[in-house]
């Protein structure tokens, strides 16, 4: 028994050592690579933040950048110096601006980031709250070729799942549209055009409220601390902190001044409604499945059966009885037939 045990321990030890010192894949090699990579990641993050400063019309100083990157001022200064040395930024009166090369670099990062978010939304089941964090990692890993291959696979999308435009390969980036929800006119019906994904906690809260792109809200009232809106049948009060992450655009031809535009969840059994649209927040295979089942604008849809446990609900869609979960129904915008509402 002993020699066998000895052989076994020896080979185990051999495996462990190999795992540590193996070239390129071993623990040591990976550690060295990650040190190298993390310096590049910090530099790239710095470029992105300088770019973001300008997008938001803030002044970009060493201090503000240190804050944005959550690094000590000393490190921020060092990063900026390195970027300046490489000709990516230039300094003037303690403020930093991107050079042309820097601008292009920043846009390439933004492009990779938003394309990856699009990919996660369309092709995987990764929850929305994780898109940003994962994309934050991938933007440093994707090479220029990877990014273009990804773009072509996704059919060259123009917007990311949060409503941000994706810069083109040649670096064109349309100006963001809309106004902050905090600045919307009271009494207006507005449409959500962008949901900021940072900080994640706020994004998750908005998601939990059922907010999605293209959803229409009516602004009921506003104070410094909060905004009161009508979403479907529901009156919601949003803290200023939360509302600050929502960008909206006034709707001129609001199709539901009377609140008959609701999600499918709000339609009661045997009440008939017409589909207006599938929320743009729902993308990829999930969206395609609903479309294939015949959930397209104008389709008549009637909840007919509620399962024993309350969810899912079966709907009559184009002659077939299809069960949909609450989460799916909540991303289908419908118009109640007003006569039926009265009855």
């Amino acid at each position, binding site marked *: 028994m002993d020699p066998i045990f000895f052989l076994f321990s020896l080979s185990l030890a051999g495996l462990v050592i190999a795992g540590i010192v193996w070239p390129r894949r071993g623990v040591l090699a990976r550690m060295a690579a990650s040190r190298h990579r993390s310096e590049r990641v910090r530099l790239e993050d710095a470029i992105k933040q300088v770019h973001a400063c300008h997008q938001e019309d803030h002044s970009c100083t060493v201090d503000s950048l240190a804050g944005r990157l959550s690094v000590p001022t000393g490190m921020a200064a060092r990063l900026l110096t390195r970027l300046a040395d490489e000709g990516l930024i230039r300094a003037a009166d303690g403020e930093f601006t991107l050079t042309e090369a820097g601008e292009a670099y920043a846009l390439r990062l933004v492009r990779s980031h938003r394309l990856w978010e699009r990919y*996660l939304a369309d*092709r*995987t*089941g*990764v*929850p929305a709250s994780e898109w940003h964090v994962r994309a934050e990692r991938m933007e440093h890993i994707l090479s220029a070729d990877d990014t273009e291959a990804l773009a*072509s*696979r*996704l*059919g*060259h*999308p*123009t*917007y990311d799942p949060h409503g941000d435009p994706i810069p*083109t390969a040649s670096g064109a980036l349309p100006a963001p549209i809309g106004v902050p929800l905090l600045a919307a006119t009271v009494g207006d019906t507005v449409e959500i055009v962008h949901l900021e994904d940072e900080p994640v906690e706020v994004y998750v809260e908005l998601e939990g409220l059922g907010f999605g792109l293209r959803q229409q809200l009516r602004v009921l009232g506003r104070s410094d601390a909060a905004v009161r809106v009508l979403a479907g049948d529901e009156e919601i009060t949003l803290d200023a902190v939360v509302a600050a992450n929502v960008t909206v655009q006034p709707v001129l031809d609001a199709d539901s001044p009377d609140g008959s535009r609701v999600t499918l969840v709000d339609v009661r059994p045997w009440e008939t409604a017409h589909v207006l649209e*599938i929320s*743009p927040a729902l993308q*990829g*295979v*999930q*969206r*395609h*499945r*609903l*479309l*294939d*089942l*015949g959930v*397209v*604008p*104008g*389709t008549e849809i009637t909840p*007919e*059966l*509620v*399962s*024993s*446990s*309350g*969810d*899912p609900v*079966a709907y009559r*869609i*184009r*002659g*077939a*009885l*299809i*069960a*949909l*979960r609450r989460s*799916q129904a909540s991303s289908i915008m419908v118009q109640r037939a007003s006569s039926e509402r009265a009855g």
Partner: protein
Amino acid sequence: MAVRAPRSPTRQARRDERLVRLGLSPDRWDYLVALAGNPNVGKSTVFNQLTGLRQHTGNWPGKTVVRAEGVVLHDDKRVKVVDLPGTYSLQAGSVDEEVARDLLLFGRPDVTIVVVDATRLERNLNLVLQILEITDRVVVFLNLTDEARRHGVAFDVDELQRQLGVPVVPGVARRGEGIDELMHVVARVAAGKIVTTPHRIERHAPAVEEAIAALVPPIRAAYPNVPNARWVALRLLNADEVVGGAVRSGELGLLEGDEAEDGEVLGGVGTALGEAVLERAVALRWDLPPDFHDSLVERTYGAARAIAQSAQVQGLKRAAFDLDRTLDRALTSRWLGFPLMLAMLAVVFWITIAGANVPSRLLSVLLVDHGHTWLKGLTAAVGIPWWLDGLAVDGAYLATAWVVSVMLPPMAIFFPLFTLLEDFGYLPRVAFNLDNMFRRVGAHGKQALTMCMGFGCNAAGVVATRVIDSPRERLIAIITNNFSLCNGRWPTQILLASIFIGALAPSHLAGIVAAGAVVGIAVFGIMMMFLSSWLLSRTVLRGEATTFSLELPPYRPPQVWHTLYTSLIDRTLIVLRRAVVFAIPAGMAIWVVSNVQWEGASLAYHFVGWLDPVGALIGLNGVILLAFVVAIPANEIVVPTILMLTVALAGLGGVGAGAGVMFELDSVARTADVLTTGGWTLLTGVNVMLFSLLHNPCSTTIYTIYRETGSAKWTTVATLLPVAMGVVVCFMVARVWGLFL
């Protein structure tokens, strides 16, 4: 041979090669007919009616392979019919859709039959219109016209035919109505005697039309004979990788009419021009609206609605009593839903267990007792070497006989019953009722069904997960199916529960206590299934794509005889065949380890010695672990193997039939004696019951998982996860036991 101009030999070879790649066997035939349609429209019924059940179901199960194919003779022509997976569309969003689309596009069937459910005409026409975009030669079979009539809908078939531009044959496949007519029309279309003018959606949104108009000329230039340039253009604008690949490689060119003589040259030209087409498509995509795909679907459905409305005659008298609605109200009601479901399942299991007893015993007497003795006599008479006799008769034959006698009867009862419930339309309602529970752990309601199937046989349960069309939920269902106690393991549970747990209770309660323990183990398995589904969906499977949809088909009277036949062929015999294939080597391995001597003792003796310390750690012993290892091919042989090894190693006399020969004792009491002599305690009994629930799936199931997932990674996860859980659970039980007793 063929009616059309003979193909050049290289061309024919290339086509064969392509079909093999698509999963078809390259038999000789005159016409290739594909059968397409939405899920649940009676497509398989049409298939069986057309082929007269003479099809070989050899392609079971491979997901990437078309489901079934068969050859029929019609007017001296060999017609090969291929059954495509049921899909809602051909957008290639799921594997099924891709399989169907690729076959239509690259397999180039001579005729495509689209089976249409007359009660859901609008939804079905969506698929018909998509198919008409790809291929001209289509025949629509308007199925279930009787059901539609009951719902007060009749059809103007001529109008439908005129609108679609292809022949429409109404009928009721279940009763064979319209099938002859269908075959007749198909043959005429294949022979070119009926020329179709398929409906094509001509007007898309202006921006889309502009892009199409810009892309069609280069496509025509590269591939002059492509019949569906508009469709190819749309797919390219939609960033379809497969179509893009075909355009690039020039394969699209090879699919054209037969007049092109030399494919090589064409392919060369195609590659250069194809590249240009793709570049143009990419450039054009920029100007398309972001919801371009949505608008395409909207258009198609718009056309489907218009056609359906013009061809339907509605407002006829309906059947007075709406059975569907009444049944649905009861079966999904808040109060009755769950009790009815439990009652129904209890009845199915009871029939299975009670009904399987007698035939199982008969088979066992026939195959194990008489068959084995007879074979031994035969080999003795012929005088073959002892080792060959042992390997073949004591090893391979006996293991196989065990597996057949234990597995066949319950499967032959359970699967048809289950299929009847499925055909009736009840099972989707079960999934509907239970979905909420499964949703919480990240799974699909239909997993309840595959789980039930797993109680019969895990391999069949894994195959049944095909009904789950969402990738992530399907993987979860596949990986956790093993937690359903399959009927290879029920006997082990029942035997051990009677010996060790029933014995704890006073004798008049022993039976009930033992039964309770077995049910407890099964419920524990269900809990583990939920737990591991939850873990999987939150860890390794987090990022997999997920889509939920569950269609509740109308109730339909099941076709009893047909069901019996197909479930026997499709499920029972095929699962059994695989089990047998794996039991043979297992039987030989068992015989070898107990008969090959090394350093004065059998291999089994050494293995058990090595495994004993590990076994002791988790409250088992070396014999048990070795038995679980050699019984990987079939769980049924765990107990016989344990008995055989225990007797052989403990040197008990007077029991068993020699080393390497599996046996089972005729009384529970004698089995208990043997096990106690082998050092078993109550803890050992409990832990073996737990480990029998929580260990790797049998090799048949492992192989099936590999076939279904096509991934070594997920197969490994599915294999090792339950073992890890079993080791942990047994270890904890053993330690806690050690603290108190």
